[in-house]
Structures are given as structure tokens and as C-alpha cells.
């Protein structure tokens, strides 16, 4: 059975290949079937393998398909490694991926480049699976870059609009910055361990590097660089909101559920190295905490539905980073899974709205959609509740609560991290329900023309169910103490020790967290449903609040900052030197020769007496030389 492992990434790749080669000549139905079907089969195999894995409980399955290359003992294979961690990711990628593919068949139905879309999507799923299944970091890097490429292709799917192309390039380049750091990290790892095989490195590292050793810290930071780029965390988060230029299913799959969490996967995968580098762990936590606050604040101010969701994604991944940073590995992964469900759901709902409103994304043009799109409303509401972590009934509550708790009580946690996470949860609740109220309540501003068809609705419903029940596989120990998920991950990810002194008061903090999200919901109700005008007035009255709002709206000015610091100088420098200043040296040499030529030509004036003078001068010189020396 585990011999089928290679098929999981291979099927989507095969689908992509067929679609690239023959897609344009295929009927649309076939394209959709091929596209969704190949991912579906992958999901099926995952299911089979997953059952086997769960029942047999091996540490991992490994399958080497072929040796990629072998140079001087460096022999990374095209080899797949399935353990609990990858299983979770593969499961999410294939299942959510499959659902989104199905949804896309409806969403993209009117698109001209139907085949290209599915080809890219399949290529993406394949690369993503490669990433999470890779048994060595180089293959992981292949998947890593592959998903980057697909992200580029899909953000720029509507290539005719230069803005989309810009967003696509921005995404690729900024993530490439992170990738570069990661590549350097790989160099260090290879130099130290002579291999890039993940398991080998993880088992070697503790023997080679003492805790806190300089190299371990450096490596961890470099890997963090890669993770930060891919996952849209500070300081490389600016590409993700712009990435919303792609079709909405793309945003759902790539920029919410899967690719952007690759950073989380990388850190979790190399957890041993991070454990050896406490400063890096701290950095992960701080990056997460700061990012979740900044992105949350920005999400409060956005009007573009997809941008709100994008910032929310950044913020939620911030939670995952926070969890990883405090050593709550399985909590981070758990949140990843739950987030994948509800964020994909939210995006798909947003997609349904957008397509229903003729590609209208501005929330101010929406409103009152509750009645026009009831299914979308309910599913969106479920997703939003999960995102806002409304207590008890949502999956989001359980996953986020774990993170909050460990941020405080974990051995690496502290009050500040906890406070940041708590405030973040509060903000999350506000902006989530701001969306709900503005979009679905109030009066309708745009006519709904295009209600979603069955292919679109079914994935919504399934995801809505998952967003609710997904949380019940891991319940707090003071609640029901169900630890299915963390048990699963136990062999891969180390557990977390809890500070016993505050262990007693866990109830209190859980209630606090629940309360915060309910208060947030209430405030959103107040500001955006009950008294929107008054709230608006409060904001606009004061210059300070206006300035804050503008600052938040601009994503805390990062875009502008980078533009000024990097983009403009680079473009300016490049344009300035377009003609290549070094060429001037050679042009100069050429003109020097020309000048000399002109000067010498003047001596050849054709006058006999001057020629004789030349001879005489030469004679004098020679005689002087021979007499003087």
C-alpha cells in the first residue's frame, strides 16, 4: 500500500502535464474532470494510506522513486517521506485542494483559459505535495519553488491587466528573498551534515550542535527567513494582500489554505534545529505575535472583501508562528488544519459573492446578501465564527485557545505573547463580524445575478462542516481531554511542558479568551450594524484616529517603505546604468585611439620638408641617445 505514496504527487503532475499538452483541445468538461479528478484520486490514495498509517502507526513510510543526482556523496533522492506531520498536510492539501478544484469548475466556468487554470492548479497541488512529502530539504525546496511558480502563474492568471502581473511578480520576488535565506540555510546544513536528508539532519543535529550554538541559531534564522517569506509574515508579508489579484479559488487554495502555511510546515519539520536555537524560537514567536497584531489591525480597515481575508490569513498564520515559537508544535499544526478549513470556506464564500456580484469585491457595494445568497450566508457565518473563535461550537475556538494557553503557560511563553494573542483574538472577532455585518446585513446595494451552482455549494457545505467538527478531535484537557491530534503528531513533534504554577488557572484564561471574542462580536454589531454612522463619525472627527486608520489601511506603510528602500533605488540604479558604464571604458579607449590617429595623421601632411624634418629629429634623438647612454 505504501508503494502508492509516489502517486499522491504524481497524479496531479500527470494531470497538469496532460492539461498543458492537450488542454486547449479538450472539451471543458474533460478539463474539469481531469483537473479535479487527478487531485481527487490523490485524496483517495491519501485516505487509504492515512487509514493504513493510523491503524498500523508506523513512524513513517519512505519511498525513494529515484536518485535525483549524486555528486561527491551528496545524493538527494526523489524520495517521499510520510509521517504524521506530512500526513496532516497531505490530507489538507488533497482534500481541501480537491474541494476547491470542484468549486473552481463552477467558478471558472466562463473563463476562456479554463485549461490553463486547471493545469496550474494541478501543478500547484503536485508541487505542494512534493513539498510536504519530501524526504530531503532539496526536494522540499523543489516543491517550495514550484508552489511559488504556480502562485505566480495563478496570481497573474488574468495576465492582461498589468496590475495583476505586478502583483504576481511581487509575490514571486518577495518570496524569493525568503527562499534565498533558506537556500543559504541549506548550504550550512549540507556543509555541517553532508546531507540534506531531513531525518538524518534531525537525528544528527543534537549531537553536532549544542543548544544555542551559533551555527544552529544562524541556520534556524535562515530557515525562518524562508518560512517568513512563504507564509507572509513580517517583514515579508506585503505580497500576500496583493496576491488576491488571482481568481478567488486560487486565493482560497494557495493563499489561505496551503501554500502560505508552508512556512509553518518548514519550521515544524525542522523543529529539532529550532529547539537547538532558543533565540530563533523566540524570534518565531515574536514574528508571529507582531504579525498577528499588525495584520489584524489592517484587516479592520480594509474594504475589499478578499483583502480583509488576506490580512486575516496573515494574522492567523501569525498565530501558528506564535504557537511554533513557544514550542506548542502540535497546537500550531492543529490551527493550521482548522484554519485551512475555515479560511478556504471563507474565501470560497467570498468567491461566490464576488461572482454573484459581477466581480465586485468592495464590501461597501455589498450588503443585504443574507436573503439573496442564503447558503453562502450560512456557510460564511460558520466560517466567520470559527475564525473569530466563538466559544465551544467552532473548531477555531479549540485550536486558538490552545495557542493562547501555551503562549502563556508554555515554558517558552510569557505574558506579553499572551497579551498580543489575546488582543489579536479580540481584533479578529471585530473584523470578522465587520465583514459579516457589512456584507450580509443592511440594504442591498448591488443586484445579485448569478447565484452559485451545485458544484460550488457542495464544497462550501463540506468545508463548513469541517470547520465546525474539525475542532473536536483535540479538546482541552480540562474540558474533555481529547488529544487525538497531538497524539498523532507525538512521534514527530515534541510535546510541550506547561508551567505548573499557572496550570491551575486555565479555566480563567479560557473564559477570558471566549469573552474577548464575544465582546468583539458585540462591538462589531454595534459599530457596523447598529450604529455605523455614529462610529464612522467618531473615526472621522479626530485627526489622530483618521491617521491611524490610514496607517493601518496602508498595511502599516510597509509597501511604501520597501518601495522607497529597495524597489525604487534598484530600478533607478538599473535605469541609470542601462547603457552599462563599463562600456565607457572601452569606448574611451577607442576614442583615445581615434584621437591619437588624428594627431598622428597631422604629421603626415604631404610636405617633403616636414618629412625631412622628421628624419632629422629622429637622427638627433638617436644620436643623443647613443651619445648620452
Amino acid at each position, binding site marked *: 500500500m505504501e508503494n502508492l505514496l509516489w502517486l499522491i504527487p504524481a497524479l496531479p503532475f500527470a494531470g497538469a502535464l496532460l492539461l498543458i499538452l492537450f488542454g486547449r483541445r479538450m472539451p471543458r468538461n474533460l478539463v474539469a474532470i481531469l483537473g479535479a479528478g487527478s487531485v481527487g484520486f490523490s485524496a483517495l490514495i491519501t485516505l487509504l494510506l492515512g487509514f493504513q498509517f493510523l491503524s498500523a502507526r508506523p513512524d513513517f513510510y519512505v519511498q525513494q522513486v529515484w536518485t535525483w543526482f549524486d555528486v561527491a556523496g551528496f545524493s538527494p533522492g526523489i524520495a517521499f517521506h510520510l509521517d504524521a506531520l506530512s500526513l496532516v498536510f497531505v490530507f489538507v492539501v488533497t482534500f481541501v485542494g480537491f474541494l476547491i478544484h470542484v468549486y473552481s469548475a463552477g467558478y471558472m466556468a466562463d473563463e476562456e483559459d479554463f485549461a490553463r487554470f486547471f493545469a496550474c492548479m494541478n501543478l500547484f497541488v503536485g508541487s505542494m505535495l512534493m513539498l510536504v512529502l519530501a524526504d530531503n530539504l532539496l526536494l522540499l525546496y523543489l516543491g517550495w519553488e514550484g508552489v511559488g511558480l504556480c502562485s505566480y502563474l495563478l496570481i497573474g492568471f488574468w495576465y492582461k491587466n498589468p496590475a495583476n502581473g505586478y502583483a504576481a511578480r511581487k509575490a514571486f520576488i518577495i518570496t524569493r528573498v525568503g527562499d534565498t535565506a533558506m537556500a543559504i540555510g541549506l548550504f550550512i546544513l549540507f556543509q555541517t551534515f553532508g546531507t540534506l536528508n531531513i531525518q538524518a539532519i534531525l537525528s544528527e543535529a543534537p549531537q553536532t550542535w549544542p543548544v544555542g550554538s551559533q551555527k544552529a541559531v544562524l541556520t534556524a534564522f535562515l530557515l525562518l527567513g524562508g518560512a517568513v517569506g512563504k507564509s507572509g509574515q513580517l517583514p515579508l508579508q506585503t505580497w500576500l494582500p496583493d496576491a488576491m489579484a488571482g481568481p478567488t479559488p486560487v486565493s482560497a487554495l494557495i493563499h489561505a489554505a496551503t501554500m502560505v502555511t508552508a512556512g509553518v510546515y518548514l519550521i515544524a519539520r525542522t523543529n529539532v534545529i529550532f529547539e537547538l536555537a532558543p533565540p530563533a524560537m523566540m524570534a518565531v514567536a515574536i514574528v508571529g505575535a507582531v504579525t498577528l497584531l499588525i495584520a489584524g489591525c489592517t484587516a479592520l480597515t480594509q474594504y475589499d472583501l478578499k483583502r480583509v481575508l488576506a490580512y486575516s490569513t496573515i494574522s492567523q498564520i501569525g498565530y501558528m508562528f506564535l504557537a511554533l515559537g513557544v514550542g506548542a508544535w502540535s497546537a500550531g499544526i492543529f490551527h493550521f488544519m482548522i484554519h485551512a478549513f475555515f479560511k478556504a470556506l471563507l474565501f470560497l464564500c467570498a468567491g461566490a459573492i464576488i461572482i454573484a456580484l459581477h466581480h465586485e469585491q468592495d464590501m461597501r457595494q455589498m450588503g443585504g446578501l443574507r436573503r439573496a445568497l442564503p447558503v453562502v450566508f450560512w456557510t460564511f457565518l460558520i466560517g466567520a465564527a470559527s475564525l473569530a473563535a466563538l466559544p465551544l461550537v467552532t473548531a477555531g475556538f479549540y485550536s486558538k485557545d490552545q495557542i493562547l494557553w501555551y503562549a502563556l503557560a508554555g515554558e517558552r511563553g510569557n505574558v506579553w505573547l499572551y497579551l498580543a494573542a489575546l488582543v489579536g483574538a479580540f481584533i479578529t472577532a471585530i473584523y470578522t463580524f465587520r465583514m459579516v455585518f457589512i456584507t450580509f446585513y443592511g440594504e442591498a446595494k448591488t443586484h445579485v445575478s448569478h447565484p452559485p451552482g451545485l458544484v460550488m455549494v457542495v464544497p462550501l457545505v463540506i468545508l463548513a462542516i469541517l470547520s465546525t467538527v474539525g475542532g473536536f478531535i483535540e479538546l482541552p484537557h480540562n474540558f474533555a481531554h481529547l488529544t487525538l491530534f497531538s497524539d498523532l503528531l507525538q512521534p514527530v513533534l515534541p510535546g510541550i511542558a506547561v508551567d505548573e504554577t499557572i496550570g491551575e488557572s486555565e479555566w480563567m484564561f479560557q473564559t477570558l479568551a471566549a469573552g474577548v471574542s464575544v465582546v468583539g462580536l458585540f462591538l462589531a454589531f454595534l459599530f457596523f450594524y447598529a450604529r455605523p454612522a455614529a462610529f464612522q463619525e467618531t473615526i472621522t472627527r479626530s485627526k489622530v484616529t483618521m491617521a491611524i486608520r490610514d496607517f493601518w489601511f496602508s498595511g502599516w506603510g510597509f509597501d511604501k517603505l520597501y518601495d522607497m528602500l529597495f524597489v525604487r533605488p534598484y530600478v533607478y540604479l538599473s535605469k541609470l546604468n542601462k547603457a552599462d558604464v563599463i562600456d565607457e571604458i572601452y569606448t574611451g579607449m577607442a576614442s583615445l*585611439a581615434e584621437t591619437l*590617429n588624428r594627431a598622428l595623421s597631422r604629421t603626415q601632411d604631404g610636405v*617633403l620638408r616636414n*618629412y625631412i624634418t622628421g628624419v632629422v629629429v*629622429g637622427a638627433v634623438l638617436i*644620436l643623443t641617445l647613443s651619445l648620452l*647612454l
Partner: protein
Amino acid sequence: MSQIDFHYLMPLLILTGGALLTMLVVAIKRNHKIIYVVTALSLIGSFLYLFELRGLQRHVVEPLFVIDGFAILYIGLTLLTSLVISMMSYAYFEQREERKEEYYILILLATLGACTLVISKHFASLFLGLEVLSVSLYALISYLRMRERSDEAGIKYLILAAVSSAFLLFGMALVYASTGTMTFEGIAASIASAYDLPLLMLTGFGMMIIGVGFKLSVVPFHMWTPDVYEGAPAPVTAFIATVSKGGMLGLLIRLFMQVEGFRFQTLVLIFTIVAIASMFAGNLLALMQRNVKRILAYSSISHLGYLLVAFLAGNELGVEAITFYLVAYFITTVGAFGVVTMLSDSEGDAEQLEDYRGLLWRRPWTAAVFTAMLLSLAGIPLTAGFVGKFYILAAGVNTQLWLLVAMLVLNSVIGLYYYIKLIAVMFQQPEAGREPVERLRPSILLASAGTLAVLALLLLYIGVYPTGLVNLIEGLISPATMVQNPSAPLLEAAK
């Protein structure tokens, strides 16, 4: 003079006889074809006689001449070059109204002068050879009397050559005054023990360098070169560029080797400066030039600079290199001027760059030959010029003349520019190129074309397989051992 002396001097005597015979024939009947045949026969005869002399011992005709392998090599080279030039002259002069017959007398006499130069070992024979060569050249340069430029070139050459002769003579007189002998070995003997040259000698050598430098057209005595090249008829230009310079170079080598001039830093320094200046001046002057004959003139200045690099190496390898380079250079130059001759019409010589535009498409074979010649001048592989340049560089590197070698490399690059500019002009699209006013009968051009073809093939052959020529040169020069110089046992291991 014994009988054996006559035997050894026979090639020169044949030439003299040929010249006299031509004169007589002209007196009897002016016929271009007959004169042409007589000339060719006497050159060929003279050349064939050289085979008689091969392998014989070095022979000295006291006190004036010495005939050794070196001399035979240079005489042979001179004769062949003259032959080739006269072959190409036929078509050239056939289309011109002037009396053409005396031209061949002058060619024969000039060749005789050059041959005398390379076998002389005495100031008197040196002077005689030089003047026979020079006076013939005055007439040759201005042979096309009706052309204003011919006359101008002639008078310029005459005055300058006379001035330089005066320098040479005065220098010889000073050397004579200092040593009391005019034979090379006598001079060598008198300074053999000297660590430093006496003032009189130095002045004398200095003034002789002026005379020699003029003939070689090296900086700063080069200024006549472009004007004379431009004004003289194309075949004569070829003659000046090759035979006249080759003869003088042969003499210079013999003199310098004999007196071991390389021992004296001053002389070496002078030649170094002259070499570098010639390379630069020649190449820089040619850079933007638009007259092909002038380009070739300037290029010859720089090539003499290159030759001086090998000359300064001052050992057997250097002499071999010079000789090899001369062969390559002769073939190339004669070939290049041969093309110019071929393309010239009765109006004037084909010397403007415009005349060559699109030549590759109009007359592909001619253009191909010209391209090959230019590439050889530039020293690009597959041509003899490359091997020659390689040889010179080898000589320079061997003696570790790094400065000169570096300058040579630098100048090769500068020079490349105008050679490939010429080539580029040839493959540009023709824009109603100036066709020759009247074309000769193909049969007349056949000789020229055939000669050019032979030259081109030779160029490639030597470029690809230089072994034969190298063997010949080494075989003729080594036993000559003009100087018993033990400090240069080079390359013997590889032989």
C-alpha cells in the same frame, strides 16, 4: 676572382645579364611580351641556380661578399618575390599606354641590388647594393610619368633616400675612421673585446641606423611610406614593401649578428624604442585611413616594428622567426597588392575603400584572397601570418622581452581593427560599385589570377603546415652560424 667565385655569384650575374639582355631587346624591338618572358626567365634561371649552391659550404668572395645558407635563403626569397611581382605587373601595365618595357629592366636591377645587399659583408658592397636598389626604385616609383602622384612620390622618395644615404655614408665613414676597416668581421674584431663602444663608433652606428631605418621605413623615418605607396604603381609598391625591405633587413641581421650589436645596451635601447614607436605609429595611423594603399603602407610600418621584436631577440630563434615572418609577410603583401593590381583599371589604382565595397559579392574569389591576405596580416590562424606572429612571439618570450611582446600584442589588437574594417567593407552590400572601366581579356588576367591563387594557397599551406618551411629555414640558417653564439641553444630538444 676565381672561377669558384663566379660559380657562387652566378645568380647575381644571371640577373645582370638578364638586365642587359632586356636592354638590348628593347633597343631592337619594343615588345611587352618578349621582355616579360626574358625577365621571368632570368629570374627563374637565377633562382634555379640557387639549387646548385644549396648544401655547399659557406663561401666568401673577399672582401665584399659572403654566400651562405642565409644569403641563399634571402636571395631565393627576393627572386621569387620579384618573379611574382613581375607576373602580376604584366596585366597591370598592359592596360596603360606608357612605355612598359623599361620597367622590367628596372625591376631586374632593383632585385640585383637587393640580392647584393644580403650577400655583402663590406661597406662598399653594401653601398653599391643599396644604391643600385634605390636608384632603380626612384625610376620605378615615378614610372607612370603622366600621373602627378607618381612624380610626387618619386621626388619625395629621391630626396629622402638621398638624405638617408648621406647619413648612412657618413656613419660608415665614422666607423671606418674608428676601426680602419670596412669589412663586417674586421669591425667585429676591433670591438670584440670592447665593453663599451667608443664615441666615434657609437655616432657612426647611430647614423647608419638612420640610413637603414629609412629603408625599413620604421619610425621616425617612416613618413615617406604612405605617400610613396600611394603614388607608386601598385606592383612597384609591392616591390618596395617586400624586396627592398627584405634586402635591408637581411643586411641588418648579418651586420648585427657579426658585430654582436646586442651586447651594446644603447643600440638595443634604440631599436627597442624604434620598434615600439613603429608598431604604434603604424597601427594608429592606419586606424581611420580610407585609402587602401596607405593602409597597407602604415600596416607595413607596424609589421617592421613586429619584425624588430624578433630581431631584438638576437639569437638564432629570432633570426628564424624574422625569416619565417618575412616569408609570410612577403606572400601576404604581394598578395594584397596583387589584389589591388588586379582591381586597378587604366584610370587609376583601386585604392579607395569604396572600390572594395561589396567585393565579396561582385568578385568572390578575389575578395576571398584579399580576405585571406588581410587575416594573415592580422595574424589570424590558418594563415601564414599567424605562424609568423607566433614565431616572433616565441622568440620574444624566449628572450623575455616582455615589454616588446606586450606592445606587440596590444598593437596586434589595434591593427586588427583596420584589417577587419577592410574585410567588413568587402562584405557590405554593394551600392552600385565602381566597376573597372574596361576589363582586359581574361587571358591576360589569367597570369595575375593564377599567381594570386598560388599565393593564397601557399599562405594557407604555410599557415596549416609550416613544418616544411621551418625545416628549410632552420636547415639553411643553422649551418650558416653567422655568429658562434653559444647562448642560444633553443628548441634543439624538440627537433
